[in-house]
């Protein structure tokens, strides 16, 4: 038993660090660290840098232009990225639809879409949730009816993250209304520029435009955009969700947030001394750090078990629950560090290039908003209650 990385893994980590030092644009890292707005162009710049290095598609086999990395290597890469403030890759193309195409897609679909994901030509979004289908995803109602070489799609998707930037959406649609819930669902790739599609922003409680509603009004989709067999889309959906959960523990992101917390808790004062020297506050920081230490170790154990088998199983649901609880706990402490300066809601301060002096400190404007934004962590990717159902069924066999 050896809890340390091997010499090869350490060498890999050095290589990653050198790459990040060299290729991660400083202004992007600053934005991430200080919680400022990231533009579509920022995401694309970082995507391009990773692609040029051949390190964008960490989940893909080498044959398709992926890295072929082990689970541990992927973990190292994600963690190192997070620690230096690299933005998280928008997962919908590279980490969600791509694995589905690699597993279930035709050669034509693979040849067409995968290179476009690698070179950033396509920006994908996810058409899963509907107003009446959240945790109960299989109750979705958006339907597709075959008409010659096309499907005609009608319905509505919601909570579509960054759909406002996307030119492609992968959707679960009902193709057989008579069949049982999970049967009769198909996996369709749809061009967002098709006539009949409209996107409406949903503003979240932190004032951000991150998610959208997407409406489909007699949208014509070529039949070659069907992935897998008609009425067997649920297989694709489930396969994708296991990928989605992997990495949701967000160890690296939490470590970066914890560093940030300690940094600003040294600067903020209470009773004439640093917040970090207040025993009560310090104990709360200590507690979350210990929880993170345990969850990191649990993640590494899960990865080691999956080393040869690829994607971790239902254990990743436990990691999702713990990991999101920790990130939320850190966001709670971050909000508390700045005391009353959590209150001001100053939009301009979320711009890195804002010409005005910050009201308080360059990091303060975003903290309360992020706390509210991160409530999403225990809801998306399968709510934490759904994760518990999964653990109950798959691991405990209840």
């Amino acid at each position, binding site marked *: *038993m050896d*809890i340390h990385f091997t010499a090869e893994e350490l060498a890999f980590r050095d290589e990653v660090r050198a790459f990040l030092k060299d290729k991660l644009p400083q202004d992007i890292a600053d934005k991430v660290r200080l919680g400022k707005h990231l533009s579509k162009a920022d995401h694309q710049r970082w995507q391009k840098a990773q692609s040029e290095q051949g390190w964008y598609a960490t989940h893909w086999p080498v044959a398709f232009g992926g890295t072929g990395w082990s689970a541990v290597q992927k973990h190292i890469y994600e963690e190192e990225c997070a620690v230096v403030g690299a933005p998280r890759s928008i997962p919908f193309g590279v980490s969600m639809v791509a694995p589905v195409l690699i597993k279930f897609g035709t050669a034509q679909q693979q040849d067409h879409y995968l290179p476009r994901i690698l070179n950033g030509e396509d920006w994908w979004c996810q058409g899963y949730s509907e107003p009446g289908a959240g945790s109960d995803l299989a109750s979705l109602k958006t339907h597709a009816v075959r008409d010659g070489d096309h499907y005609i799609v009608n319905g509505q998707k919601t909570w579509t993250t960054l759909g406002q930037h996307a030119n492609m959406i992968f959707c679960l649609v009902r193709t057989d209304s008579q069949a049982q819930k999970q049967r009769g669902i198909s996996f369709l790739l749809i061009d967002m520029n098709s006539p009949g599609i409209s996107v409406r922003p949903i503003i979240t409680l932190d004032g951000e435009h991150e998610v959208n509603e997407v409406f489909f009004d007699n949208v014509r989709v070529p039949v070659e955009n069907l992935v897998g067999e008609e009425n067997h889309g649920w297989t694709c959906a489930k396969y994708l969700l296991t990928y989605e959960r992997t990495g949701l523990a967000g160890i690296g992101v939490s470590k970066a947030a914890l560093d940030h917390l*300690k940094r600003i808790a040294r600067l903020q004062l209470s009773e004439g001394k640093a917040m970090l020297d207040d025993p009560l506050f310090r104990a709360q920081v200590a507690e979350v750090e210990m929880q993170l230490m345990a*969850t990191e170790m649990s993640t590494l154990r899960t990865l080691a078990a999956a080393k040869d088998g690829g994607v971790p199983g239902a254990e990743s649901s436990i990691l999702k629950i713990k990991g999101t609880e920790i990130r939320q706990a850190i966001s709670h402490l971050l909000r508390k560090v700045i005391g009353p300066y959590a209150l001001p809601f100053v939009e301009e301060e979320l711009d890195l290039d804002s010409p005005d002096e910050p009201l308080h400190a360059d990091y303060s404007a975003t903290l309360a908003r992020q706390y509210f934004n991160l409530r999403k962590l225990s809801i998306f990717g399968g709510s934490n209650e759904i994760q518990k159902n999964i653990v*109950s069924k798959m691991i405990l066999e209840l």
Partner: protein
Amino acid sequence: MNFNLTEEQQMLQDTATRLVRDGYSLEAREQHSRSEEGFSRAFWQQLGELGLTAVPFPEALGGFGGSGVETMLMMAEFGRGLCLEPYVQSVIYAGGLITQLGNPSQQRDWLPRVASAQWLLTVAFEEAQSHYHLNDVQTRAERDAEGWTLTGRKAVVIGGHQADLILVSARVSGESRDEHGIGLFLIDPQAVGVERRSYQTVDGHKGCDLYLSKVRVANDHVLGEPGQVLAALRYQQGRAIAAQCAEALGSMEEACRLTLDYLKTRQQFGMPIGQFQVLQHRMVDMRTELEQATSMAILAACCADQVDSTERSRTLAAAKFIVTRAARSIAEQAIQLHGAIGMTWEYALGHHAKRLVMLSHQFGDDDHHLKAYSTLLDVA
């Protein structure tokens, strides 16, 4: 990174599993617990004969040179079987101190007897006011021409009622909580001036309070440099903590197993109660706590024998904190999920619950280790 066991480790684990399974039914444990010794002398000797009590000692001193991982594997099985033998006190803690501080003749004379389970040692480091702080020592040791004289009272010495020898911390200089001025003395409980008030503990073990009144200790029974032993006490307590985390892990695994079985078999409202989502989620919470505790027990095992450092102290404090919190949570939830049957003496679960909670009253509870970690917080 690799979490696999070597072939030797696998064999050691199998041996411990078999021993505990064969020798430690709940009924047998109850008998051992009620016996005068409070544990099984036969089982203790078996551990000695099979070399399990020699595992953690260096090869040069007649041991097998096992690391924290080997200790973890054995302790988890002892925890699963709720074993009563003071392995942690005798082998890990006292044995570790003799290994670390003993002069060659002390090592040569004493360690083989500890490693073969011929001797049972224990440690007496708590006092009424010390509340887990090893530096808070009021028991006095006075020097004279022939050796030392100890006077004071030591609290809750687990295994002290039966120990052949007891390692006692006593102050040779300074005030109650000074870090300097603590010495370590090996006393014979039969010696003149030693009184023991023995009792059973809530979790079925036995111990005593130790009353020392001008107890004579010869110079060759002084361990380490009198006045300078605190660092060694803390280091060896770290090893004891790692071992104890593993013991708790075995017990938590068993408590979770019993509870899950119960959820699958107990029928109410015409179905197994495990069909109810509210109970399923509680069981998942227990499983999650167990997962976190497992990770920390492994981490503790891997750093227990490392050279002393802030990093090691931090990790061990974190392990004790996480495991203590998990242990209490699992103990309480397991009783709740069982309902009234979990409250009975005749069913194993209650004994696991008691052991799991009582472990937090040794070597520091969650608050103690939260403070310790907080003090050592890496703020660079």
